Each structure stands twice: as C-alpha cells, then as structure tokens.
C-alpha cells in the first residue's frame, strides 16, 4: 500500500475520476504554485468508484481558484485542511463564468487573432452543462 503522509494546510481533492488528475493539475495551474507541494495518487482503490485519483496539495488555503473544478467534474470532493484537520468539505457547482482556462476553437472567433484577449465562457445551459464563448457564442466541445 502506497503511503503519502497527511498535510498541515491545503487541499485534498478526492473522488477524482481515474485518469483525470493530471488534467486537473494543469487546469488548477498547480505547477505554478510558488509555495506549494503536490502529491498525485492515481488509480487508488475506491469502494464507490472502483478506481479513483486523489490530489493532495500542501499550500496556503485560498491560494487556488477551485471554481473550475465544478466545470471539470462536480462529483469531486474538496477537503480543506488546516492544522492537520479537515475544516471544510466544499461542494462544487458549475461556475457561471470560466476565464482563461479553456480556449475557443472556432477559427472565426475574434479570440483566434486578437492578442491579450481573455478567454471567457459563460454557462448557457446548466442542465446540459453547456458553455459558450462570450464573443462568438460557439459551444465548447473540448471537455
């Protein structure tokens, strides 16, 4: 059994769909954390999911924007740790706006040519989890 020690302050992201953890590592820009250590556990056994990934991040709380997690998979469990204790289990919901995380793939969109433009998507249909580019309204299909 692989053993990774607990963390003093930071996050434990549990119940990540197996294989998704590296994508989440990129989306959350964990590699750019100045004051943080990340452990990625892949294909851990799970009674609920069969196999799952887990990410543990030792970092000051509130140094990561977790809104995007709701977009990636709102079934992920977010545990917030302080002084070695779980102080909060945060539920996830679909963010109303996603900024500079995903890119518009429509070649006719202004974002394909205009430099310095933020990539903004808005939640167009919550039921079907549809996001559209704020500029050209094209549906995002890359998820």
């Amino acid at each position, binding site marked *: 059994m692989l053993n990774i020690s607990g963390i003093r302050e930071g996050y434990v992201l549990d119940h990540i769909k197996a294989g998704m953890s590296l994508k989440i590592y990129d989306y959350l820009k964990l590699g750019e954390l100045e004051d943080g250590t990340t452990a990625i556990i892949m294909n851990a056994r799970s009674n609920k999911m069969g196999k799952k990934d887990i990410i543990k991040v030792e970092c000051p709380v509130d140094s990561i924007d977790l809104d995007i997690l709701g977009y990636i998979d709102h079934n992920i469990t977010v545990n917030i740790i302080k002084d070695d204790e779980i102080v909060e289990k945060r539920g996830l919901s679909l963010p109303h706006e996603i900024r500079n995380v995903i890119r518009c793939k429509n070649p*006719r*969109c*202004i974002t*394909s040519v*205009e*430099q*310095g433009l933020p990539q903004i998507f808005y939640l167009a249909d919550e039921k079907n989890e549809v996001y559209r580019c704020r500029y*050209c309204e094209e549906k995002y299909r890359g998820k």
Partner: protein
Amino acid sequence: MRHLMSPLDFTTDELYDLMRLADDIRENRQKYAKACEGKTLATCFYEPSTRTRLSFEAAMLNLGGNVLGFASADSSSAAKGESVSDTIRVISGYADICAIRHPKEGAPLVATSHSGIPVINAGDGGHQHPTQTLTDLYTIRSLRGEIGGLTIGLCGDLKFGRTVHSLINALVRYPDIRFILISPPELVVPSYIRDDVLTARGIPFTEVKSLEDAMPELDILYMTRVQRERFFNEEDYIRMKDFYILDKSKMELARENMLVLHPLPRVNEISVEVDEDPRAAYFTQAHNGVFIRMALILTLLKEAGTL
C-alpha cells in the same frame, strides 16, 4: 454606455419606440435634417459591404452629421496588424458613434470594452447582424401592421447567415411565431439557435429541404445568399450556391399576401423576374434600413448624452 451588439439588447418595447421614431423620420425628413449637426459617425468596415455601410452613411448624412471611416481591412491599420481594441481607442477620440463590421465573430463586443463612444455591430462573421434585423422587423411591421401570428420561412444558408440568426433571436419574442427552416443539410441552423433559442423556448419550427413544399404555408419568405466568404472550401461553395432559386413558378405556390424579404445582395437565389411581383419587398426593405438606422443613431447618441 449603451451599445448595440444583438437585437436582444433592446426590449420589444424599446424596439417599438425605435420603429415609431423611424416612422416619424420617414414622414418628417426635414424635422430631423440637422438633428446630428456637428456629430460624427465612424464606419469601421473590416470586410466589404455596400448596403450596410452606405445605409449607415446615408443615415448620418440625413441627420446632418459627418461620416469618416474605412471600407476594408486592407485600407486600415488592421493590415499592419493593429488590434480591434487599439483601433476603437483611437476612433473614440475622432467620432461620436461607431459602426463596426468585422469578419471575426465577437470583434464588435471586444470594441465595446475599450470604447468611449456607442458601438453598433454592423455584422461580425457568421454571428450577428442586428441592424439588418431591425430593418427586417421594421419592414415586417410596416407592411403587415404588426409582428406576430406569422409563419416565417427562412431559406438558404442558415448556418453562416448571420441575418438569419439575428432575426430568429428577435422574432421569438413576439407572439405566435412559427418557423419553417429551409436549407440543404450542410447549411442548417447552428445548435446555439436550434437548441438554445427555438427548442428551449418551445417555439414551433420544422427543418425542411424543399422550398416548393413550404411555399403555401408562408406569410413571410426570407431568402438568403449562400456566402462564398464563409466557406473555407471553394468546392463546397459551388455545390451549395444555386441550391435554391426563387422564380415565378415557385411564387405561384405562395399566398397572395406573402412577402419576400432578402437582406441583399442577392446573387442567383431570387430570379429578377420576381422583382415585378408586388409581394417582392426586398428593395423596400433596403430603403427602410436607412430610417431605422437614423432612429438608432439618434437613440444611442441621446442615451450617451452626446445629443
């Protein structure tokens, strides 16, 4: 600062006020001849246009204002790589209001983020063309008395035709509207119109391929051109361009009071023999575009506190 990016930026009540103002302008031209004296409209057209640009320019000149601008990306700093954001920052110091056409979808919206003057979307790629929609709505209201209780056939390039997208978005706000969407399978309306607008709002619509079958049911037939500039592949364009041609024989299938509208320019999709038919309203529609743009310019300048 109020801009016009989509026809939905105005409520139906505000559109009604705009149309009443356009009526007043049409009937009392002299009353408005100096309404914008000393004010300047910039027409920033990054892709070619005849009607829309001249219509905007005619509108401002009829109001006693001035016009400046460029008519293609080649004749502007865009050819040197200048961004839309920088261009509008500069234009804001030269003019009081700006109409912008751009081949990239969302470009006018980018302009609004950096503009100190009202911006009007004069067409952005295959996305929106709100002033054409105002013209279409104004023409329907002028010729039918009201907007509502209509079966509207949209025919041709429903995929890239921005006038179609804008018009559907605007018409679904009126009562008892039904659509018959007539297009080849390759040029059907995009999902953000079919799913998010029509289906989501429970608007009755059918998608068909045959214009002849649809004709007897229509109150309005809105023809569109298959646009060469929207295709990445010339072969696809040639295969699609003459898919629908409205001629006398097809007009015989239509109701006596059906109206034929077209945003123009037409290529082959309406035979010239149809021009003499009293139901052909597309040239009236083009003329109406000047009055509704005059009303729009006046309204936006007033709201910006410029007038």
